[in-house]
Every structure is written in C-alpha cells, then in structure tokens.
C-alpha cells in the first residue's frame, strides 16, 4: 500500500474548519465560565423572589442551562469573530 495522498482525507473545507474551531473553543470557554460562575453563585439564590423561573428551580437545571447559555454566547462571539476576520475589510483600498 503506498502512502499517496489519495488514502488520506482531504483537508477540511473552510466552513467546516470554522464550525469545528468555534464549537470546540467556545465549549472550552463555556466550561471555564460555568465553573467560575457557579463556584461564586448558587443557582438557587439567583432568583430574587419565591417564584423562580423553571431554569432556577433546581441546581442541576441551573448549572445545565447556565452552561449551555455560556456555550451559546461564546459561540456567537466566535462566529462573529471568524466572520469579521474572513470578510476582509478595506481589502480593495489596501490592495492586498
């Protein structure tokens, strides 16, 4: 069997690379955010009245919803960043 490039996967498309990178790094960032945030704040004491919304009804729900919230927000930031970096502003003027 030769080691030609034919039996190797082709490189990922740009879109796939962006999605992969953003999903994974925002996941890592969300883990950190959720860890620090919930070490400092107890989901049960976040609601200020006796009638908390469903996502603050139990700690597990609070942690889980909080984690996905952080993941989502970080991913939004990641996608916007990658979109901004890839759409070259002023490319026409600088001629690069």
């Amino acid at each position: 069997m030769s080691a030609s490039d034919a039996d190797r996967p082709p490189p990922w498309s740009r879109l796939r690379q962006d999605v992969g990178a953003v999903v994974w790094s925002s996941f890592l960032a969300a883990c950190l955010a959720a860890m620090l945030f919930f070490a400092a704040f107890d989901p049960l004491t976040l609601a200020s009245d006796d009638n908390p919304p469903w996502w603050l009804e139990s700690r597990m729900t609070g942690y889980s919803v909080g984690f996905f919230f952080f993941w989502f927000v970080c991913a939004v930031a990641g996608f916007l960043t990658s979109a901004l970096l890839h759409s070259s502003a002023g490319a026409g003027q600088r001629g690069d």
Partner: protein
Amino acid sequence: MNAPSGDVGGGLYAAQQKVYPREVTGRFRTLRTAAIFALLGLFYLVPWTQWSARQAVLFDLPARRFYIFSLTFFPQDFFFLTWLLIIAALSLFFFTAVAGRLWCGFACPQTVWTEVFVWMERLTEGNRSQRMKLDKAPWSPRKLGRKSAKQVLWVGFAMLTGFTFVGFFSPIRELMTSAFALSLGPWETFWILFYGFAAYGNAGYLREQVCKYMCPYARFQSAMFDKQTLIISYDTARGEPRGARGRDSDYKAKGLGDCIDCTLCVQVCPTGIDIRKGLQYECIACAACIDACNDVMTKMSYPKGLIRYSTQAALEGKPTRILRPRSVVYGILLLGLMVGFVVAVAARSPIGIEVLRDRNALYRETGEGWVENVYTVRVVNKDAGPRRLLLTLEGPKELSLEAETTELQLEAGEVKGFPVRIRMRAGALRGGHEIELEAKSLETGKKLARGESRFIAP
C-alpha cells in the same frame, strides 16, 4: 498553516474520507498502551473508591461541595479553585516548553479515547488493509455483522464513559441503582448521553481531526516551543538523500542516506503527515513513526533513531540544555505555586463564617431604649469531625451580642445559619461601624474564623 482548500462553504456535510493509520508495534507503542491503561483505569475506577463511608472523589454539584479523600471543599474555597487553574495554566507552559507535546501523545483524553475506539475497530473490522477493503466492498451479511459489532462496542463503551463521567458529580453507586431501576433524573440522563455521544463522535469519527482543526493547544505550539524543546524529528542529515535500495547494497557508495523511503512513517501517522518534512503543528507527538522507523532500521541492520525524540538544538549539533531561562523561571514559579497551594490547603481554617445582614431593615428600635441590628451567621464546618464553637463580637464597646446561644454545635461538613442580634443603648453611637464576629473553639479557645459586617445606628 494550511491554506484552506478551494471549496469554501457547502463542504460541511461533504462525505469525509477516513484516515486508516497502519498499526505499529514497538517501545513507544507499549509505553502509550501503559499510559492509556493507567489513565483510563483511574478514570473508570476512582468514582468507585470509597473513603470513610462516602465516595472518595465526588464533585457533588447538587450539594455544592467537593470531596477529595479527607478534604471537603465548599464554595467559600473558591480561591483554591482559581489557584488551581493558575497552576494548571502554568504547568501547560512549563511541560510544553520542556517536553513538547508529550501531553498530546500520551495523556490527552482525545488521544486516549481515540486509541480505545481504534482498538475496538481493529478488533471487529481487522487491520488497516482489511478495513480499507471492507469499506470498499458492497454490503454483505459479513460486512453488516462486522460493522454492527463495532457499533455495539463503541456505543456500549461510550455509554459507560458517559455514566462514569456523571459518576464524578453525582454519587455513582446510587446512580447505578437508579440506572438499573430506570429512574435516572432527567439531567443525569441528559449528561450521560451528552458525554457519551461526545466521546463517540470525537474518538470514533473525528479523531485526530480534532487536534488538527479544532484544538487551540495545537496551534500555540510554536509560541511555547524553543530550540531546547523535546520534539519528534527526522534526522535529515543522516537520512537524506532518501531512496530505495537492496538490503545489502552499499548505499553509501550510491550516495544515499539512511532513509529507504518506505513511507512507513507516513502510513502509521494518525494525522497523516510526513515527519520528514520537519516539525509541523499537526504532529501530536505520538511516536508511532519512531517505532515504525526503528523497525525498518533494525531490518536493514542500520542503527536505530533515524526518527527520534530530539531537540532543535541537538539537530543543529548544539548541546541540549534542559535548564534554560524559560524552563527555570516557569519551573520555579510552578513549584512555588504548588508548595503554596499545599500549605494553604493544609493551613485552611476548618471553620468558615459569613455574616449576612438582615436585608429588610437597617436597624430596629425596641421599646426599652435599645437599637438592634439583625444578622444571620452562616457557619461551615469543613472538618471531618463535629465541632463546638463559641461566637464572640469584636467591635465598639457600646455594642453587645444577643443570641439564643453563642455556643454553636456543628456536625462534620455541616452548614448552619444562626440568627443573632447586635444592640446598643439608643444614642450611644451614630452612623455605620465595622464589626466582626469570631468563632473560637470551645475546647481550646483557639480563634478559628471571623466574619465581617457593619452595624448601622440611626
């Protein structure tokens, strides 16, 4: 960095070809297998370890406390968590500067679980060429059987992994009982499936593509490496010019180097790179190419080590220094932080106190000429045994502490709130004053903890 290929967009769902790394044996393969057994052994067994009638290592998120053998951590110990994170970050820099991507090849969960999934694939679908043939062949009962066997192994192992993962956060013995009774909570079920699915996808399908395209660590390699960093490299001076030759031919006379251009090092590489092109960020330092090449060198009766662990400096013929400003500074910092951490944990007060002011009223005037402030004192006993404490007030002498009892009794690991009032004769003080409530051990009189708050007078 790889230039992105031409097809921008639309490629996300395009069928991906697989990497079929060739299997390899040798010294580093054995070492990696040992590392996998040690690490996964720890992962799957630690949750089952008991320590004085409870799970030895349990990050009890629902109860907001972490148990690590004899230690119990509470949210009040937040500071230790940030300290640990700093240690972790610094270790990353230190070990990468010294040992390169040893982490990637031997310890990263991504690599470790991938190895297990690849092993299961080999078990069911055979070796590299058998797998390639099987994938090309039309569907047959045999193919279906092998593919389903693989999926059964993969899914089962992924579920076990997800279950174990959740077992670090929720007592694993109870988790198992409820799993068998089909009465797992919704979030437990969700996280078992989530983590299991992540393991299945990452280790079964994405594999080294994670390292190549998704992992931030891989891309910081060049920032953390220097010329003295341990890397896996091909000895160009010795190997080139490469070329095929007979086993006993006098290749030196033909002007050839030691590389026989068998491309085995490329075939075994899980990320599909050619190490002979030099250091690349795709290389996860798995050392498979070392094993493969050493095998070839042995068969050819050439000395081993055409591909080997080395450093940039050594390849340039300069001495390798493990001690250099970068490693020494990182090392000293790291050591200091770790020693500090151990000392701080050992010296950690077994008692934690928080004084919370009553939010409803600044102060209260009683009928008998007193002005009172109301507080709740939250006391945590982080100790492994019960504690008896005496609560005292430190502050202006006009103030006095009023409580049902100032003798507090707490069980091991207990968190309790005690209502207290602090009062003064009306008019004795004006405005706000700092106060402190102190907890002393009833037995020894030793001060164990203090909590600060304010007393507000009219």
